[in-house]
């Protein structure tokens, strides 16, 4: 065990040392402000509070990193700030969920542009949903909608990624459900689920493992429903090991089970689903503003890329979130960033109409 630990530490150190000399001392004795767009205590804040001490340790020069919770406007404020107010000397970074869908669909209040900002790295998210088992017969997922409990989807808002992917997927599955947006946060969702008012809640696996499993599954009628997988470069869905091990099918597998036919990949809904997954392939991410010095980016990257192999961080992450670290490589993060500018205009219009339909 000790030798594995030593090896991992050496690897982490080697990655950090691989940064060019100029980046080595760029942050020495400096303080970095990590701007988190949500209030303390939420999932995003908890993630970065776990990450930040280790990131500070692994960035060459070992700067101090402090968290500034710049909450407001559903995360828009901090993102806008990163675009037009943040100093670009490397002293501040944006540590936030990636709001690419909001930018692409032109949500009101969006002034940020990810294509001009400098991505440091990101975390891949695992997306799933919890469902009331009484909405199906004997817990058989392929009978969803035939149980005693009606299907009511507790949504956030029609433009949120979480809702978009679920509505698109359930429409493709051909499920008859009532979509009710406005359930913001577990304080509203959990009582509604336990009282039978709603029966499906979408979430990422981190949130599920951290709090929702105990509330909805252990003490309520919930079970994991499906996985909404990401796609590889060839457009094939890529299920995650965590959910495969738990026996949770992907939305594509469930479709095949329900309809005995292959998942349609050419319908507007299916293509829009793929676009949404592409635009949310990076969950939580770290950004420097436009014009930030190369040395800052290199030093940040060195720290960020060292994290997934750093044993101390791995232990802290697993302890906090009960799941393995899932980080995108720098190239994957850059590819995700480039996807924002390359979104198909026709699909974007489809998504905008789909969002508007969710408000009806």
């Amino acid at each position, binding site marked *: 065990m000790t030798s594995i630990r030593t090896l991992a530490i050496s690897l982490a150190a080697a990655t950090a040392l691989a940064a060019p000399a100029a980046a080595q001392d760029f942050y020495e004795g400096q303080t970095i402000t990590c701007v988190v767009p949500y209030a*303390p*205590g*939420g999932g995003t804040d908890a993630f970065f509070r776990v990450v930040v001490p280790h990131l500070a340790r692994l960035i060459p020069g070992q700067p101090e990193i402090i968290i500034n919770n710049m909450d407001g406007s559903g995360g828009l404020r901090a993102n806008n700030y990163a675009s037009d107010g943040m100093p670009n000397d490397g002293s501040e970074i944006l540590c936030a969920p990636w709001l690419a869908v909001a930018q692409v669909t032109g949500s009101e*209040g969006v002034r940020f542009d990810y294509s001009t900002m400098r991505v440091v790295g990101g975390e891949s998210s695992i997306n799933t949903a919890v469902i009331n088992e009484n909405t199906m017969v004997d817990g058989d997922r392929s009978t969803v909608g035939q149980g005693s409990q009606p299907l009511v989807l507790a949504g956030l808002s029609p*433009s949120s990624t979480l809702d978009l992917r679920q509505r698109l997927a359930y429409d493709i599955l051909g499920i008859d459900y009532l979509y009710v*947006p406005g359930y913001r946060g577990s*304080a509203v969702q959990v009582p509604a689920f336990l009282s039978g008012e709603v029966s499906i809640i979408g979430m990422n696996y981190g949130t599920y493992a951290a709090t929702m499993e105990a509330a909805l599954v252990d003490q309520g009628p919930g079970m994991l429903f499906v996985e909404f997988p990401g796609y590889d470069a060839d457009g094939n869905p890529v299920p995650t090991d965590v959910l495969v091990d738990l026996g949770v099918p992907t939305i594509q597998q469930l479709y095949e089970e329900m309809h005995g036919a292959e998942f349609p990949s050419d319908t507007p809904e299916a293509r829009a689903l793929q676009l949404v997954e592409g635009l949310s392939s990076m969950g939580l991410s770290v950004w420097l503003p436009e014009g930030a010095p190369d040395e800052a980016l290199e030093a940040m990257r060195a720290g960020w890329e060292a994290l997934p192999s750093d044993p101390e961080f791995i232990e802290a992450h697993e302890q906090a979130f009960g799941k393995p670290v899932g980080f995108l490589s720098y190239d994957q993060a850059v590819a995700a960033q480039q996807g924002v500018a390359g979104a198909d205009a026709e699909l974007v219009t489809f998504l905008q109409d789909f969002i508007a339909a969710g408000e009806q």
Partner: protein
Amino acid sequence: MFEALISGLLQVFSWPAIGYLGFGIMLGIWLGALPGVGGVTGLILLLPFTYTLDPVSAFALMLGMFAVTTTSDTIASVMLGIPGTVASQATVLDGYPLAQQGQAQRALGAAYTCSAIGGVVGAVILTLSIPLVRPILSSFSTPEYFMLALLGICMVGTLSSANIAKGLVVAALGMMMGTIGDGTFNGVPRYWFGVEYLLQVPPLVSVVLGLFAVSELLDLATRNTSISRVSKVDVRDGTMLRGIKDAFRNWWLVLKSSALGTYIGMLPGLGASIVDWAAYGMAVQTTKGENKFGRGDIRGVIAPESANNAQRGGALIPTLTFGIPGDFAMSILLGAMLIQGIRPGLDMLTTNLDLTYAMIWTLIIANVVSALLLMVIGKQVARAIFVDGHYLVPIVMLFVFMGSWLGSKVIGDLILMLLMGFVGLLMKRSGWPRPPLVIALVLGPNMENAFTLSNRIYGNFGWLERTPSQIILVLIVLTVLGTILAQRRRRRREATEPAVEPAADLPNLNAKLSIEGGERNPMISLPFAGVLALLFAAAAIIAIDFHPAVRLYPMMISITAVLLLLGILWTDYREARSERVEFGSWRMTWAEALKKSDFIRGLYFCSWIAATIVLIWLFGNTAGVAMFMGAYIIVWGKKPWWVGVIYAVGGYAFITGFYDELMHIALQRPAILSLFGGGG
């Protein structure tokens, strides 16, 4: 279970947990006493320090600090008339008049005793009620959360003022402020007029500090007086011991309020904001015979202070067992649990039961110890009510400026504080109660959310067919009707009997007491009501273009408010006309109204705040506030220049040390640097 109980206690008393608990308590007392800071800020401050601690120490530190802020926040409520936190708003109604009567020590003594008892009772009830949490949570659906919030708002609207219509209109104003920004249903912003700051609901802390602090400080600044309107020699029997005795004499009220606080605390999203009002309402409605509620009745301090400490225990349970953070503070605590690798859930009642008990013991110990400590230092604290107000104003303003800044850390927060300060001044001086605005702002967004969701699921108002909702509706009607009848009875009694002067038992009470919603000035109230009517009408017209799902709520509130305002305008007009008869002409009446309301000096005071905001923008928070402090002492307070220098340097050092270095609050970057090309 017994083993876990003892094990939990031993863990709290083991080193280093007990040390962290002690530190948490001291910090909590300090933070709770600072207006605008409070427990939530403390939790944010402590969160990063808990990484390296073991779970018991981490929660001893955080919960120890958090539990006691509702004890020490009484200081600002009683001494300054500024609610230390939202949970101590109701305490202001009677606590502040008591301080003005020179009985701050008595009020504080009663408050501390009740806080300790409330905290302990809350922890005990919470232990016994753990099995009830699931049924309680499951029996309340979204419509009931809406109805409970409405009940809370009606309670405050009717209880906090002699004029129920004004109370309800102010509540409507708070509810409408809660609709500003990001819509809860479809994410489309409303009432934001292209201003990014208005994409969010106005931050509560800036609203509270503006609404209460500015007008109370103006009193101190302009009336050349101390907080107490009577001198020290005139105060008899206002000691802390009397307050403690008051608490024990009203033991049944203390127990009832504590139980109520615990159970309300269990309901997510409602707890902290309505618990003090629910208890206050219960005290008012169950008190028989003569009372002085709103004018310095000790029971008006006892009930909310028992309940708000008990609530902390209640709120903990859904967080621990279901991972449902009932309020913002609990969500920070939940974050701390996750960082510690502790998952909420049934484990907290089985394998981790000792940790749950350790948390409950922490609450009990913290509540008792803090009350004892505050009683020891309380006498010294209470002396401040006899100090020349000019020495206090700059110090409190430092916390007002910095507390408002904590809202969202932009200049907009300070402008909001100034605006609310001006509005609060008008309200206070013309008989409009301020508390309903705050509670409606707190509950408003969740209420609208619940309203929209209920309509979507059960059909428009179809949810009113649900029995639990109907029961709460009956309670709402009873609350409003009960208060109207009680007020009528009181008015009739006052008309037939000689008026009971507030604090008639005190000699030489020349200065007028500050009774919430108690001042009459129709010439100020009339235009204020007119402006409000226009604003509500405009809001209703703007709402026509909203998406149907988010249109109903703001329209319903605005139209109700306009109707109520028509009645208020008519009453104010009649009162104004009778004043005109008294003073001979409209001009004289207007001049008299301005004099009575201190309007011009109020504007002057507001201009000082505005100038300070410009200074903060130009030179940053530290220099800007320090300049204000020095200038106030020398120019306004007419004190020697060196006192001004001491204040300025002290203020500078405090902001740098506490807010910047310790709390790492992001401060304003001095605009002067970029104006002169300094970059940055």
